[in-house]
């Protein structure tokens, strides 16, 4: 009998993302590892979720990994598709439970940068831009951020706030007029939330083999650590096999 290789860090990210989803939710999906997480959820503990996409596809039938958020797999036999304005409108309107966001930089208050490292006047590294990121982050009740941590990618303050997290912390997000907010960050370290008063990023669960020191070393600001820090149980062989054989068989997003 062949041994199933243990989950690699990307697979743990996909698994932890999938665990953020509850069955029957309406889930807003982008490309990349968020899609892997959602598809894994659908094939495991949350078979009745409804997936909605930025390009307008609503509740498509399951198929191959979409090649883009506009891929035909995102509107595969969809009962209907929405125009872009309506597609984001339903986040504001209260019809989307959870959305996922990646970003080049994520700071201690969960603000995300997908616009520019440096500034538009003095560009160090130009990124594609908000796309639907700002809309999702501004309007969705609960968003989950995902990123591979390093001190550069997780700085104290992002160079450019593309997608709002808790802005300057405290009640600054609410004061700005925004709704909802990020509830978790999933990285190779484990899972973070945001401390309710300060809104600072806080480690709440660690992946197997990770330590608080390792998580802190991969972060460019002082991490808060939850009193009841959990250790995440590695995914079962069944789940890993679904992830590797069904969800991302070509290993596009889950292999190094």
């Amino acid at each position, binding site marked *: 009998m062949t041994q199933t290789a243990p989950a690699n860090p990307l697979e743990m990210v996909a698994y932890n993302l999938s665990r953020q989803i509850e069955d029957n939710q309406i889930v807003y999906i982008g*490309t*990349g590892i968020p899609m892997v997480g959602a598809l894994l959820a659908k094939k495991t503990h949350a078979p009745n979720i409804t997936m909605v996409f*930025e*390009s*307008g*596809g609503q509740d498509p*039938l399951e*198929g*191959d990994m979409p*090649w*883009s*958020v*506009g*891929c*035909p*797999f995102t*509107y*595969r*036999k969809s009962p209907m*598709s*929405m*125009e*872009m*304005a309506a*597609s*984001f409108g339903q986040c*504001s309107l209260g019809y989307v439970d959870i959305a996922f966001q990646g970003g080049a930089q994520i700071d201690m208050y969960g*603000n995300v940068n997908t*616009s520019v490292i440096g500034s*538009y006047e003095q*560009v160090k*590294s*130009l*990124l*594609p*831009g*908000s*796309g*639907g*990121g*700002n*809309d999702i982050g*501004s*309007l969705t009740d609960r968003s989950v951020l995902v990123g591979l941590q390093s001190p550069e990618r997780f700085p104290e303050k992002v160079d*450019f*706030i*593309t*997608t*709002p997290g808790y*802005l300057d912390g405290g009640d*600054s*997000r*609410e*004061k*700005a*007029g*925004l*709704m909802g907010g990020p509830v978790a960050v999933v990285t190779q370290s484990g899972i973070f939330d945001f401390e309710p008063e300060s809104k600072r990023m806080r480690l709440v669960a660690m992946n197997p083999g990770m330590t608080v020191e390792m998580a802190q070393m991969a972060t460019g600001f002082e991490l808060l650590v939850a009193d009841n820090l959990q250790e995440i149980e590695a995914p079962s062989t069944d789940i890993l096999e679904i992830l590797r054989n069904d969800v991302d068989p070509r290993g*596009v*997003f889950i292999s190094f």
Partner: protein
Amino acid sequence: MSFLFATEAQFQRLVDFEGARRHHLEKDRTKKDKRMPLPEAVDRFVQDGDILAETGFSYVRAPLQAYYEIMRQGKKDLVGIGSPMSNCSFFMSTGCMHSIHQSYIGVEMRGNDKSFSRIIKNKKAEILSVWSHGSMAQGFKAAQLGAPFIASRQLLGTDIISNNPYVKVIDNPVGNDNRPVCLIPALFPDVCIIHVQKADRYGNAVIEGPAINDLALSAACRKVIITAEKIVSEQAIRENSAASIPFWYVDAVVEMPYGALPGCCPGHYYWAREWWEELVRIATPDEEKLKQYFKHWIYDSKDQYEFIEKLGGIRFLDEARRQMEAAQLFIDDSLVSFDYEEVKPS
């Protein structure tokens, strides 16, 4: 305001509600046969200095072959806008465009567009305003609704809003939640080209699959060119009340099978994935390679048929057709393979 490339007139015209309304009032409403070849449509209706809105989803039902004709005709001083707007990078690198209102430029998981990066870093083009997809969609939707602006809660608190001179923030004057809202003005690009699956000779056009921003853009833009996979009879469109776009919004109709290649077109053909990967991963990092890439594919191709020959002719088209049918589950997708040789950066 001062700009590197754009004019004050171009900047103001985007939000000129009264001007757009007057233009629409004066537009010829005659129900006439508006069919013409692509070169004529581009020559007559895309003018130097136009604000050009991208349509479709950049590589999904996007009028790419028409964009390449714009490049071949050497149109200049265009201003780009759209959600998304990945082709504006190529308008910029071919010298057609030096100013954009930016929401997203890139090919998602294919990699970052290094050409766009280089152009902005070297100040060969400028970003006039920064947006998100949803806020720009609101702007086009406001125009379609005939509203001066739409109030929204996107963009608040972010650096996008401080890099967007068009959007204003006020305290919400209605209802119980009087926290700030942002006001997104109605947006009026000069011209858009919309690729549809079916249109009649008058311009009634049918969009299949996600409309993205095209319903709003067809109403907002001063000039609208329709490129259609198929021209059908007016009766066929009347039969099902099928039109997404009414003929009086439309200035020109071009019969344009395969007009969305090398992107995909719902109901017709899948992407040429290797083409995009080659472009983004191999060509965009190197200015000379990019020039050669566009010379081969765009400047040395007369029309979409020559383009298709270079993609692999009928063999390519056959596969692309079946892949789209399978992706949309019009046929059993276990009959079709999506395997391909991924183009990796060297």
